[in-house]
């Protein structure tokens, strides 16, 4: 019974990823397809799309984050780590079913509902790092404004409370991983179930931490901000002092403008899906599964050094 359900789900998911075959009710993936142009790719002379994700440079010179993040750190973190994820991903997926999809699609498909395919780690790390570089800027830090600030205050009490919770989550990651601020207005793709639209009170900002390459796209959350807590992100500048790295990152580097822009997109996406949802409500399924995430309430007492 279970096997049948899973098979049906994955095949419909796969079908819905091909633009010419978008016919099903899977609006999440359809939405993702619209976002596809965000990701750069090489188109061969013949017009055939090949596995050619490009290493996108950070939107600032490599020494522009000094003294908070050194040129040397970016040389390695972007020029070696990020680059290797992209190159290895291209090698892994060339000629496979994943070839030609957007990076987001490769991440979601290769996650394979937790039974990860070999490409997942490289795909997700390529996505995470691109998102990471764009989360920061020279002269960043300070406070968010507008709608973002309003939601931060609503969902965390105050900006200071948010900062404390976010920093604490990042400091207490037991190993390599990422800490995120995300907008949660998700619906889950669960077969054989009614998947209701998120209620108004379900739509909120959340802090989540994810191990290794995992990111909140997998639960259909909209990531707004991330901090890389793999040791390679900070070891050359801060050695074991992860807490100093986190403070510097949040106080001097975060681009709240970018986070605000991402929030706008996330809310627009949520609104768009609601409008679509009222048209085909009957076809939807419920989610009776809890997403496997590490919410900020899981934060443990001790910091990790």
């Amino acid at each position, binding site marked *: 019974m279970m096997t049948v359900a899973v098979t049906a789900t994955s095949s419909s998911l796969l079908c819905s990823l091909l633009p010419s075959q978008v016919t099903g009710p899977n609006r999440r993936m359809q939405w993702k397809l619209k976002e596809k142009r965000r990701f750069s790719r090489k188109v061969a002379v013949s017009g055939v799309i090949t596995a050619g994700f490009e290493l996108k440079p950070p939107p600032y010179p490599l020494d522009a984050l000094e003294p908070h993040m050194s040129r040397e750190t970016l040389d390695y973190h972007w020029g070696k780590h990020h680059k290797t994820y992209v190159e290895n991903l291209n090698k892994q997926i060339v000629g496979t079913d994943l070839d030609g999809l957007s990076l987001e699609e490769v991440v979601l498909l290769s996650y394979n509902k937790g039974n990860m395919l070999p490409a997942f780690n490289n795909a997700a790390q390529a996505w995470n790092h691109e998102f990471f570089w764009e989360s920061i800027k020279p002269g960043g830090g300070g406070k968010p404004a507008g709608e973002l600030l309003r939601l931060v205050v609503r969902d965390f009490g105050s900006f200071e409370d948010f900062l404390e919770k976010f920093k604490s989550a990042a400091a207490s990651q*037991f*190993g390599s991983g990422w800490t995120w601020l995300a907008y949660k207005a998700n619906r889950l793709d669960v077969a054989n179930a009614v998947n209701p639209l998120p209620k108004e009170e379900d739509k909120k900002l959340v802090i989540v931490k994810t191990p*290794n390459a995992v990111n909140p796209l997998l639960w259909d959350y909209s990531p707004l901000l991330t901090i890389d807590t*793999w*040791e390679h992100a900070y070891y050359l500048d801060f*050695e074991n002092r992860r807490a100093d790295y986190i403070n510097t990152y949040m106080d001097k580097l975060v681009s709240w403008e970018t986070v605000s822009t991402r929030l706008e997109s996330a809310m627009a996406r949520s609104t768009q899906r609601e409008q679509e949802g009222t048209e085909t409500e009957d076809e939807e399924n419920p989610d009776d599964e809890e997403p496997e995430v590490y919410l900020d309430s899981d934060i*443990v*007492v*001790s910091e990790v*050094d």
Partner: protein
Amino acid sequence: MAIRSLASRKTLASLKETSSKFLGFRGIQTFTLPDLPYDYSALEPAISGEIMQIHHQKHHQAYVTNYNNALEQLDQAVNKGDASTVVKLQSAIKFNGGGHVNHSIFWKNLAPVNQGGGEPPKGALGGAIDAHFGSLEGLVKKMSAEGAALQGSGWVWLGLDKELKKLVVDTTANQDPLVTKGGSLVPLVGLDVWEHAYYLQYKNVRPEYLKNVWKVINWKYASEIYDTESK
């Protein structure tokens, strides 16, 4: 330094007896950072003195400190009958306690070249490695490959399965000790593949670290554990 080294060796030899002290009136054990049985720079050029010093004084010390803190909170929670907090503390105990256990083994897995580091195992362990992996080279290749492929932070182990009486190679995530992969597994050699174990020297090139670490592996220690545990 010679005096310190001598004292360190003695301390490590009796690690099990001295690494914990009883706070008599409350009955809580606290753990202390074991000394290294060699100088920080003694493993160069395979592992730099800077790495060894930070790894030992900062990272291992933090695991010990946080382990003790978690155990103290556990003691309070148990005394109060606070079941929820007892459960909540388990992840911090596993992570920090695992970090202390793993690093305590790791320091003994290493030895300067002039103290036998890198000398191939002899005796029963050497024979068992040949039987299980073809040769020491075969084992080294297997462990290095698994270490390079490990996603994120973790450890690669050569272990002895006491029940099945055979050698196993396995990996654990983060600071999980080998025993989390099976109650009958005894660690003989553990390779730390957290980035903090090699980054200042090898940067993103983990395979190069995994190539060089074998030059300072203390097979004599692994053989002793093997002989004791396989009886």
